[in-house]
């Protein structure tokens, strides 16, 4: 039997000042993980006797119990403007997406949406 897993993470951030005192930003990252058991097999010619109501064919499906496939994406996009007096305003939109691509017992898929706006002062 083999047990195999793959994990992947990527991120990118960009900050841009089109005019003085204004910053536009975008932050993004992606995370994916898969894991599975495989190559579980049974040679029925080697089996001595069969217990009552036991189904040997189901042995091949045992690996499905531990099969995982998850993708998570996160993005935050916003801007900040600073005034000469030291006041500033900042706002962003954030989205986090969690995809359960091999649900077992329950589907853990969910999406989070967030909008925020701040006023502040630098001294």
């Amino acid at each position, binding site marked *: 039997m083999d047990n195999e897993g793959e994990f992947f993470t990527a991120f990118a951030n*960009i*900050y841009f000042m089109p005019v003085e005192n204004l910053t536009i930003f975008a932050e993004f990252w992606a995370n994916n993980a898969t894991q599975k058991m495989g190559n579980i097999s049974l040679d029925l010619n080697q089996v001595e006797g069969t217990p009552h109501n036991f189904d040997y064919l189901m042995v091949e499906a045992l690996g499905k119990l531990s099969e995982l496939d998850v993708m998570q994406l996160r993005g935050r996009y916003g801007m900040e403007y600073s005034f000469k007096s030291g006041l500033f305003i900042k706002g962003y939109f954030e989205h986090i997406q*969690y995809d359960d691509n091999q649900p077992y017992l329950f589907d853990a898929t969910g999406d989070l*949406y967030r909008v925020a706006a*701040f006023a502040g002062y630098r001294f």
Partner: protein
Amino acid sequence: MNHLMKSSLLVLLLLMVAGPVLAASDTKTEGEIAVGPRFTDVDGKKDRVAEYDIADDGAHGDAGFLPAGWAHMTVMSKKLFLELSAAHTGNSKQQAYRVYLDAARVFKTEFAYNRFPHRLDHDPLFNLDASQVPVKVIGDDLAPAHDYRIAYTNIVSRSEIRIPEADWLKFQFTYRRDERDGAMQGFHISHCATCHVVSLPHEVEENTNHITGTVAMDNGTFGASYTIYYRDTEQGNPALFRTYDLAIHPGLLTDVFTNRTFYDQRNGELPVHQLGQGSKVSHTGKAHYNFNDRSSVAGAIIYSVADSDYTGLEMTSKYYSGRFTTMFQRNIVFNARIRYTDLENDVTFVDLPQRPGVAGPHAGITYSQAYPDFGDTSFTRFSSLDRNNTDLELDLKIPWQRHRFTFEYAFRNIDREYYGNDATKKHQFTAAFRSDPRRSFAGHIIYKAEFSENPFVNFQAAIAPALQPFPTVPESPFPGVQYYEIYEARQANLSNQPTDIHNIDLAGSWKPRNDVGIHFSYNYRDSKNDDLNYSDWSQSIHHFNANLWYVPEEHVSLTAGFNYSQYKSETLFTQPVWNG
């Protein structure tokens, strides 16, 4: 003390510390403060997408709309440096504060408070209901709508004092407290008359205190320190109390299995799902001596004792280490390190009751009386953790034209007092080349090989032969092969500890211009154990990483990264099959 009161005291502490510093005439102050509304909405399951986030939790149920803010301030004068920071999400379950003060390097202190939620999964037990009547497996979730989560609080206070007239001496004190409160899903299982799995909420009130005190001296030639550490974990609700099902024959529903069980419904409520509670004390002594600017020697001794409040059992560890470093001509450096570890875990006698049968073929006799070659249910527990480890490490660093070659040899001997026949011996060889880090293209390549004799093995772990490939006549669990005979007949030794490891590590940084830089790394590890009697175990791991930063002009910056890992393990898979 509730969390609102704690937050208020923290703000008051911040103001008391900041006041005198701000009043000084040569003070420079800078910082920022911001507040504003934050609206959050969640579709689908919250447990993973908002695992450590309050999400749309308001002060009273789902609100989604909360005020949030942060503040940061730095105050500097000739003799004082003060840094304050605070962040609050509008929900007391997610907030953070930090204060750092340095008073002329005579007194330094840092205080931090951090609180955040942790959402836990809820297992609905849907997969356990087997339908073969009357023998079946059933699962009961007694709180199917319960939202399991833990609120985690961490408080840290670190202080250091130096005396100006004796700057070779310093005192340090650290206090840390971890609190976990909320609820987790507790499970308990009854056997016989169905396998019955039950889950219900277990309210958690766990507090762990860590206290550390250090006194250290260093006059440039000789240095020494002593540290005492104490840790204590307490549970406000250590266990659930449940009554097990009646242990009777699952098909015939007769009371014939009493001598095969230690307890059931007749013993009333018993503790289940018990959470850990105990303490640890450790003493650490360190010293070093510089013979000259080329050679030095250092040593350390650690003695620690950890115990369980429930059993009174103790685990004692003693650790001794020494290091010698010297530099030869042409800046060639030689290091030698030796370590010895002695772990002792209390031996304990596990006294288990022997109940006689109340009905059926074993009425009036215990299991040991029914099967004399089984022996006694009670036993002495000797721990596999008891061991003496000896480590020896030698390395040679050879500079060459601002690059560096390194050659290392490490040896470890693990002598387990109560497990296995022979000690585990490991030999590790390492060769490395590191290029000049000041070049526009720099990096390293490291190759490591490790060979082990007698790695840790689970003896007789699997593959019982077919002891009885036919049903007992008449159909009954009393004659015929018993479970303990199946376990004792297992043949395969299994392990996930390798005999051979080969590891290669490549990394590099490239900075072709002042506005762009790339860093990358690749690691490959191949492990195997081909000394097992029925199978081989192997594992391969690939890990690749790359990061980029690019600033094409003053007003634009870009950072990006990529990380990929892949592993594959191969081992023997066995599925024991019996019906009885």
